[in-house]
Each structure stands twice: as structure tokens, then as C-alpha cells.
């Protein structure tokens, strides 16, 4: 399996700080990607993102500090 990349460019009328917050903080992430998000937006933190309804076969992605070491 080889890995390629897909790039997109999009102009946003907002500061880099605002955009970074939208793409990294769990409260904002929930607005455009997973259904639930719980984590500290810091390298090495534990947490989870949930795609779908937990009671109906959701995909739960968890991260733990061990994964980063």
C-alpha cells in the first residue's frame, strides 16, 4: 500500500489563531467532524472522538499517553 496526499487550499477570513482553535479544540471539532470529542488539545493528552451514535455501533477513537511515547 502506498500513501499519497491530497491538498486543498481555502481562504478563510479569520486569524490563524481562530482557525487553529476551530481545527483543534474538542468543542469546535464536534461542530464539523466527530459527533463527540473529549480531550485536552495538547500533545500527549488522552481522550476520545466518537463518530456516530454510541448506542448504535459508533466508531470510537481513543488516544492514550502511551501511544505518544
Amino acid at each position, binding site marked *: 500500500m502506498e500513501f499519497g496526499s491530497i491538498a486543498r487550499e481555502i481562504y478563510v*477570513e479569520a486569524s490563524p489563531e481562530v482557525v487553529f482553535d*476551530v481545527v483543534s479544540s474538542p468543542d469546535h471539532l464536534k461542530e*464539523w467532524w466527530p459527533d463527540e470529542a473529549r480531550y485536552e488539545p495538547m500533545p500527549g493528552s488522552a481522550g476520545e472522538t466518537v463518530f456516530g451514535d454510541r448506542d448504535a455501533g459508533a466508531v470510537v477513537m481513543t488516544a492514550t499517553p502511551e501511544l505518544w511515547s
Partner: protein
Amino acid sequence: MTATLVEDVDDVLWSAIGDPTRRRMLDLLLVEGGGTATTLGQQLPVTRQAVAKHLGVLDRVGLVRARTAGRERRYQVDQAQLARAVAQLSSVGTAWDARLQRIKRIAEAIQRTQDPQHESQHESQHDSQHASRDQGE
């Protein structure tokens, strides 16, 4: 075949296409209307054994159909299955384009609440951004 819940994507189908030699083989089969391990091997920098192995992968996911024609099996692309794979690839791209648009809308809405009322006041925008950083936002 199972699809993930995140997007309707067939991982096995994608794995089959996610190989440059197999994609080249599909191109050749499409252009030439079909082929055998021999005809493909003559046009690719891989052994006939490797070609046969790749044809097996493509056959198992239904991207090609085989017919016995003489001593060799003759393969043709299954257009419907290829169209299905292409549609899934496109749908992932579309989903991400939609996410980027949501990111843009959310960020711009936040930015507007941080800016003063008048758009032309670039200096005070700069000042208010500094101020909000000082306040630990």
C-alpha cells in the same frame, strides 16, 4: 464486504486500487478492451508472476472479470465496480470539502464576533486581537 460507519467506503476495494501497478493494469485493460497476464506482462516492468498475483487481487474485488479463452484467462475491467470505487473516492473528497467549508464558516463567524462593528478599522482589529490574547483567550 463491510463499510465503515464514518463514510461508506469499502476498504478492501480501496486496498486493491491503492497500488500503482494495479492501477496501470486497469488503465491498460481499459484502453485495450481486455488483456491476459502475458499481454499485460509485456507492457509492465514486473514479472508475469507478479502480474498474475495482481490480477488475482483485482479479480477478488470484482474490478476485473475473467473468461477462459484458449490457454490463458482473458480479463476485462468491470465498469460498474470501477465506477463504484470512483464514486466512493469522490464521496470522501466531497465530505472533506464540506468539512473545510464548515471550518471556514465557523472560524469566520468567530472572527466577526471578535472584530469591532466597522470592517474598515484594521488598526483596531489588530489591537483587539492583541487584547484578547492578553486576556488569555
